């Protein structure tokens, strides 16, 4: 204990380097550095070896270093329409799902944010709870519901609404359902956080001045909740583009999404350079919206601060 006490003075001076340095070091080593390696391997050549790619550089003779950068993987991605189609369809699916999450999530977040205070904690906890429950299992639950002899079809058949079972599993519709279902809490939470901080007296003022509720919503609430909308959309869109489990389990074998394609190239075709090139392209697509949205969010945040009396 005396030792600890004599150390404390020094430890505190060390604390910024500990607090900042240790997480920085970890993330630099295990998050940032890997991307550099992925990029370098995307420029390697696939080979029948362990690991299955060629080295980028080798010493050919004393003092001569030969570096081979192989752009074949990227050329393949550009030439084969399948990869472009997968990228576009991933972006499209993620975009549609983000909009659907927003359409469903916004009214839910609004209802929770304006509910009586004593209900709010419970309502919010019910949103968070599925997020804690196994994602894989929740996707699996939909398999049992959407199958052609599944619960939904049995239910609709017994009501006489349909004559033939609907084919939903292994269609794009199943992917949409799965993504909206899995990512809905990510949309609701930032929206809720934003809407609870909203100054509702502005709405009262608008009403007093003769503004109809819908106009007041469009002119006051919606612009003020923009940071929440942007944050929620980002939290849904970015991971949804690279989603693997949902297109694989619900979308079926022919479903076209880039995350599934990367998985197949890596695990089934053992083409590590091509999988790396796909990861780099996907990353490039996502880094831009990621940085843009974060800046936008910061700006909205600052504007909100300025507007506060």
């Amino acid at each position, binding site marked *: 204990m005396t030792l600890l006490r004599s150390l404390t003075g020094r430890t505190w001076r060390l604390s910024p380097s500990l607090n900042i340095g240790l*997480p920085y070091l970890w993330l630099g080593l295990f998050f940032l550095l890997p991307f550099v390696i992925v990029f370098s391997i995307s420029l390697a050549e696939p080979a029948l070896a362990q690991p299955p790619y060629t080295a980028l550089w080798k010493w050919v003779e004393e003092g001569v270093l030969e570096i081979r950068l192989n752009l074949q993987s990227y050329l393949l991605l550009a030439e084969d329409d399948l990869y472009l189609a997968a990228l576009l369809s991933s972006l499209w699916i993620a975009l549609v799902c983000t909009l659907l999450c927003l359409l469903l999530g916004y009214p839910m977040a609004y209802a929770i944010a304006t509910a009586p205070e004593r209900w709010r904690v419970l*309502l919010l906890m019910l949103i968070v709870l599925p997020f804690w429950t196994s994602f894989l299992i929740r996707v699996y639950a939909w398999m049992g519901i959407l199958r052609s002899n599944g619960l939904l079809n049995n239910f609709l058949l017994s009501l006489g609404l349909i004559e033939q079972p609907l084919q939903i599993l292994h269609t794009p519709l199943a992917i949409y359902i799965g993504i909206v279902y899995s990512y809905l809490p990510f949309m609701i939470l930032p929206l809720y956080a934003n809407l609870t901080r909203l100054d509702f007296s502005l709405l009262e003022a608008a009403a007093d001045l003769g503004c109809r509720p819908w106009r007041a919503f469009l002119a006051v609430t919606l612009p003020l909740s923009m940071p929440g909308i942007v944050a929620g959309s980002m939290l849904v869109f970015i991971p949804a583009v690279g989603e693997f489990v949902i297109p694989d389990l619900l979308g079926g074998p022919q479903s076209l999404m880039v995350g599934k394609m990367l998985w197949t190239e890596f695990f089934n075709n053992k083409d590590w350079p091509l999988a790396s090139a796909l990861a780099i392209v996907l990353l490039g697509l996502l880094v831009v919206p990621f940085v843009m949205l974060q800046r936008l969010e910061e700006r909205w945040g600052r504007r909100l601060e300025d507007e506060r009396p």
Partner: protein
Amino acid sequence: MRETASGLGSRPGGGSAIGRRWPLFTVLAFGYAFLYVPVLLLILYSFNESRLVTVWAGFSTKWYGELLRNQQLLDAAWLSVRIAAVNASIAVVLGTLAANALVRHGRFRGRTGFELLLTAPLVMPDVIIGLSLLLLFVAMQQVLGWPPGRGFTTITIAHITFSMAYVAVIVRARLARMERSLEEAAMDLGARPLRVYLSITLPLIAPALLAGWLLAFTLSLDDLVIASFVSGPGATTLPMLIYASVRMGVSPQINALATIIVALVTLAVVIAGLTMRRPKGERT
């Protein structure tokens, strides 16, 4: 929730026009049904006698019995729980340090990069994290000879990398909202900063640490994609096993397993929720 009386209770725009709010509540009810019906059906059908998951043939707990005799599955579950526990413990330390840095050290050099590095793992698609970490481990093995093989260690490192970002979010929010007066009082009385941190700050943010630990634990227990990339032969986690059997089709054993997981997680969340609320109650 006794602190509601403090003034937040009346929201002019909110509760006033309840008559006009029914469309909102319809959407809310639909949303909750959408979130909960699939899981409830899963639980219901885990007690189904029939092997056909979609036909109800009477109440039975036989799938739970089969589950407990499935050695392969129990091994995978044990591996996953060990990984999750080690991951959560280290992620809480790193995440808390990161939260300290963000809340307590102001605008230090490289803060923007620090924040970006902490946010990116929250949204980065799993396939990218998994692939990049595997390639790192392969390169490290070639250059350093470590890690010797892929399995427990590599999966745990991978999980810590994204879990600590989640822990940082939770602890950061708590630290930012925390009253500083107790710390200042202790400081005025001559306590050294580390002493203040250990005996005042840490107990005050303990609920957030617990919530962070539990979240890191469940995130790790839940991860399929990243573990599949960075695992090696012989190390099969529970999600990897579930995935393999789910691809074969719907199986009643998985329903039973899902029910157990849902029950445990619900219990953990309720406990975390209760411990998070207690300090507030004590204050009033």
